[in-house]
C-alpha cells in the first residue's frame, strides 16, 4: 500500500506568548514540533504498512526548519520525506496550501491512501485535508476515530461526527484522523540516528510547475487575507475568589443570583 502522510510543523502552543496589548504572537520562546494530530496520522500509516507492506511518504510544506519534523517522521517509520519550501509558497491560505500539496501528490504519482490529522493546533481550520481530496478528485472521510477493516482496495472506517458513523471508502482516498485513532509510538534511539542520515527531498515551485499553476501557489493563489489579528484580552471576568469554610455557601448564593436555584 502506497501511503502519503501530510505533516505540518507548528509551534508548541503551550509556550507561545500572546501579547494582548500589542496584539502580537511571540513564537520565539516556543520550540517547533510536529502538529500532534499528524502523529496519529503517521501511526495509522505505519500500522497499515505493517499489514500490507508498501511505503510511506511524508509530505510537508513550510520553511526549511520543518525538516526536523520530517526527520522525526522518518525515525518513526516513514520511508521517504519531501519538503515543499519556496518563498512563492509563503502566505498561502488553506485553498492555496491544498492546491500546492495536491500538485506535489500528483508529481509523486500513484498512491492508495493519504492520511492527515483532523486539524492543526495553529491554524485550527481542518480544511486542508478535504480540499486536497477535492483537488485530487478522490473521496475523503473526516474525523476517522477507528479503522475497523483495512483491505487493499477499500477501508471500513468509523467517522466521529458527534454521533459515530460507519463509512466504507474505496481507495484511493484521503482520511483525516482524530486523536482517538491510536497512540503514536516513540522512535527508538537507533531509528533516530538512522534517520539523521536519510535524505529529505526539497521541492520548490519550479519542481511542481508541470502539476500546478504557479498562480495557484502562495499569496497569489490565496482567496482569503488576514486583515487584522487580535489577541483578545479575557472577557471581563469578575474574578471573585472564595476561600475557607463557607466557600460552598458563597457559591450557592452565586447560583441563586444567576437564578439557577430558587
Amino acid at each position, binding site marked *: 500500500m502506497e501511503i502519503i502522510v501530510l505533516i505540518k510543523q507548528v509551534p508548541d502552543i503551550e509556550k*507561545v506568548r*500572546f501579547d494582548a496589548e500589542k496584539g502580537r*504572537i511571540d513564537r520565539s520562546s516556543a520550540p517547533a514540533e510536529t502538529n500532534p*494530530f499528524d502523529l496519529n496520522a503517521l501511526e495509522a500509516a505505519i500500522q497499515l504498512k505493517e499489514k500490507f507492506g508498501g511505503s510511506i511518504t511524508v509530505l510537508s510544506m513550510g520553511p526549511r526548519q520543518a525538516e526536523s519534523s520530517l526527520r522525526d517522521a522518518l525515525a518513526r517509520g516513514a520511508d521517504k520525506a519531501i519538503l515543499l519550501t519556496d518563498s512563492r509558497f509563503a502566505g498561502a*491560505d488553506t485553498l492555496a496550501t491544498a492546491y500546492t500539496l495536491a500538485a506535489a501528490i500528483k508529481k509523486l504519482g500513484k498512491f492508495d491512501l493519504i492520511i492527515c490529522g483532523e486539524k492543526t*493546533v*495553529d*491554524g*485550527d*481550520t*481542518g*480544511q486542508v*485535508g*478535504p480540499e486536497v*481530496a*477535492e483537488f485530487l478528485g*478522490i*473521496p475523503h*472521510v*473526516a474525523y476517522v*476515530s477507528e479503522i475497523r477493516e483495512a483491505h487493499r482496495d477499500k477501508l471500513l472506517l*468509523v467517522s*466521529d*461526527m*458527534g*454521533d*459515530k*458513523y*460507519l*463509512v466504507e*471508502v*474505496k481507495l484511493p482516498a484521503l482520511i483525516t484522523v*482524530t486523536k482517538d485513532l491510536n497512540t503514536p509510538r516513540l522512535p527508538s534511539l537507533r531509528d533516530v540516528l538512522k534517520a539523521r542520515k536519510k535524505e529529505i527531498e526539497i521541492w520548490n515551485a519550479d519542481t511542481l510547475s508541470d502539476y500546478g499553476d504557479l498562480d495557484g501557489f502562495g499569496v497569489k493563489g*490565496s*482567496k*482569503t*487575507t488576514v*486583515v487584522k*489579528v*487580535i*489577541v483578545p484580552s*479575557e*472577557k471581563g*471576568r469578575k*474574578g*471573585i*475568589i*472564595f476561600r*475557607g469554610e463557607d466557600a*460552598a*455557601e*458563597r*457559591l*450557592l448564593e*452565586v*447560583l441563586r443570583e*444567576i437564578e*439557577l*436555584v*430558587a
Partner: protein
Amino acid sequence: MKGILVYAEVESERIHPVAFELLGKAREISEKIGGEVWGIILGHEIRDLAPELIQYGADKVFVYDHPTLREFDVIRYKEILVDFVKKFDPEIFLIGATPLGRSLAPRVAAALGTGLTADCIDLRIDENGDLIQIRPAFTGNILAHIKTKGKPVMATVRYRVMEMPEKDLSRDGEIIEMEIPEIGETGLKVLGKVEERGVNLAEADIIVAGGRGLKSKEDLKMLKELASLLGGVVGVSRPLVDEGWISKDHQIGFSGNTVKPKLYIACGISGSPQHLAGMRDSETIIAINTDPSAPIFRYADYGVVGDLYEVLPKLINGLKNAKRSENR
C-alpha cells in the same frame, strides 16, 4: 437577484439549530448589502422541514429531497451545492461549523476555487460592504479578521455564537423543489450510525466539568449529581477520557467539544490551553481548584480555592435543601 445562502444541516430528522442562527445573521447582512436570504436543504423526506427555514428568516428555500441523500455522502452533497452555486451565484455562503459542515464546506470551496474561513465566531460588514469573518486560531489564543477575494465568500460558523432569531410563523417565503443533478459513483458508502453520542454538550446550558483533580472514576457520580440538581450535564477534560473513565462525547477542549453554556463549573481542572480553547466563551464560569495559581482562575467569574471533595458535597447538600424547601 443577489442572495445570501445558508446551508441547513439535517441532523436526526430535524434542522440543526445553527442554521436558524445563520438565517438571522444573513437577514442582518442583507439589510446592509441588499439581496435575499436563501436556505438550502438536502436529505430524504425532509420537505416538511423547509417552512421552518422561512419562519427563521429565509426568503427562498431550495429543497433537494431524494433517497440517495438520506445519508451524508460528502461527494454527493458537494456536487449538489457546487451545482447550485454555479447556477444561482450567491454573494455569501454560510455553513454551520459542525463536523459535517467542516467536512463538506472545504470540498465545496475547493471545487469552486473560492476562499473559506473556518469556525467563525463573528461576521461583520465593513465600510466597503465586505464581509469580515472573525475566527479564533492558535488554539483559541488569537482572533483573526479575514476578508475574501471573489465570491461566494464562504465561512463555517460556530453554533451558539450568533443570536437565535425569533421564529415568525406568519412569515412568507417560497419553497422550491430542486432536481437532483446526475451524480456518478462516489466511492463512499455510509453504512449508518454505529454509536449515538450519549450527551450533546454543544447544546447544554449548564455543564459541570471535572478534570485531573478527581481521584477516581467513582467520583464522577458526584459531578453527575450536581449536574442533575442544576439541570445540566457532565463534561470532562481530556485526561479523564484518556483514562477511560467516560466516553469521548463528554470531552471539552481543542480535541473534543467546544461549548458555550450559560454556566460552566470547572471542578479540579487547572485550565490547560487545550481545555480553555473549548470553554473560555462560556457565559459564567465557576472554578473549584486547590491550586490558587491554576490558570483556570484567570478565566473564572467565581473561584473557590479549595478541595472539590469538601466543596462539592456541601454544594450538593445546599442545593438539595433548597429544592426541599421549594417543594414544601
